[in-house]
C-alpha cells in the first residue's frame, strides 16, 4: 500500500491511497484503499472554530480498517462537537482513535494484533502544517517536503 497527503494554497488538503492488497487474496477482494471513508480522508472545516484542517492516508489490514471506517473516524475526531475535539494535540487524537476505537474493535473481533499505519497532515490556525505518523507494524516508510524546504526527507520509521 502507498499513499500521499498534500496541502496547496489553491485547494487546501487532499489525500490518496493505492494498494495491490493482501498477498494471495481472493480475486475480487477489495481493501481499505477502495472504500469511501476507510483508506483516505481530507477535510476542511468551514472555519477554524469548527475544527482542524486535515488529510490522512492509511495502510494495514484492510478488512478491519473498513469495519472501523478508520480514515473518516480520524476526520471526525478533528471536528468540534461530532468528534468531541476541543483543540487537543493531534498526538492525543491519534492515540484515542487508534487505541480506544480501532484496537478495541479489532480485539472484540478476535484480532489481537491488527496492522495499521496512518500518515496524517494537519494545519494549524497560524498556517503551519504538521505531519504525524502512527503505526502498529514493524516499520513504516515515509517522505516529506514543502515549497519552503523542497529537499525531500525520506525515512523508514521502525
Amino acid at each position: 500500500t502507498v499513499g500521499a497527503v498534500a496541502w496547496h494554497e489553491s485547494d487546501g488538503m487532499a489525500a490518496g491511497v493505492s494498494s495491490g492488497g493482501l498477498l494471495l487474496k481472493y480475486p475480487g477482494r477489495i481493501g481499505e484503499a477502495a472504500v469511501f471513508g476507510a483508506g483516505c480522508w481530507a477535510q476542511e472545516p468551514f472555519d477554524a472554530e469548527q475544527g482542524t484542517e486535515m488529510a490522512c492516508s492509511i495502510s494495514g489490514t484492510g478488512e478491519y480498517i473498513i469495519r472501523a471506517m478508520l480514515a473518516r473516524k480520524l476526520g471526525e475526531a478533528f471536528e468540534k462537537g461530532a468528534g468531541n475535539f476541543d483543540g487537543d494535540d493531534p498526538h492525543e487524537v491519534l492515540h484515542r482513535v487508534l487505541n480506544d476505537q480501532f484496537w478495541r474493535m479489532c480485539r472484540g473481533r478476535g484480532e489481537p494484533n491488527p496492522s495499521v499505519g496512518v500518515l496524517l497532515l494537519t494545519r494549524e490556525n497560524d498556517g503551519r502544517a504538521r505531519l504525524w505518523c502512527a503505526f502498529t507494524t514493524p516499520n513504516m516508510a515515509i517522505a516529506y517536503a514543502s515549497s519552503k524546504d523542497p529537499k525531500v526527507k525520506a525515512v523508514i520509521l521502525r
Partner: protein
Amino acid sequence: MSDNVYIAVHGGAGFHERKYEKEIKHALQRACKFALSNLGSKHSSALTMVEDAVSSLEDDEHLNAGYGSNLTLHGTVECDAAIMSGKSGCFGSVGAVAGIKNPIRLARSVLDYSSIPSPIGRIPPLTLVSEGARQFALSQPSSAHLVSLESLVSPKAEERWRVWKCRVTSPDLSSLSKHLNDIQD
C-alpha cells in the same frame, strides 16, 4: 516554485526488508519531487500533487501498488485506489481493477466525473470496480492507460507468490497465517 505547498508520502505500514531500504527511500523521494515538479502550472493543486505522488509510487516495483503489487490467489494483479479533496469533499475510487498502470489516475477520473453535473440527473459513482472500472478507463481520454495484465506482475512479486502459494498447501497451515501477515506490505 511560487505556490505554498506541503507534500508527504508513505510506502505502506508493514514489513520493509532492510536490503531494499535504499530503493524504497529513493522511490519515496522521487514521488515527492515529482509532486513538486508541476508547481506554478495552472493545474497545480493538492489533488494533482497527491495523484502525481501516488502514481510515481505505483510505478516502483518495491512497493505494493500498481507494478509490483502482491498477487492474488490466481497469480494476478488487482488494485484498489482512492483520492479525496478536503475543500470540495469530492471522492473517487476504484477497486479490484486489473490491467491499469496507475489506478490512482483512474480514481481521479472517477472523482472528476462526479463533479460533472449529469444532464439526466444520474448520480455519479463514488467507486467503480473490476471490469466496470476497466470499461470506464476505456471511455476516459486522459486517465490511467490500460496495459496487459502480465505487465503489472514483477519478478519479485511472482517469486514471493510461488513461495507462499505452495506453503498454502503445506500441512502446517498455522505457521503460514502467522508469517504471511508479517510480510504484507
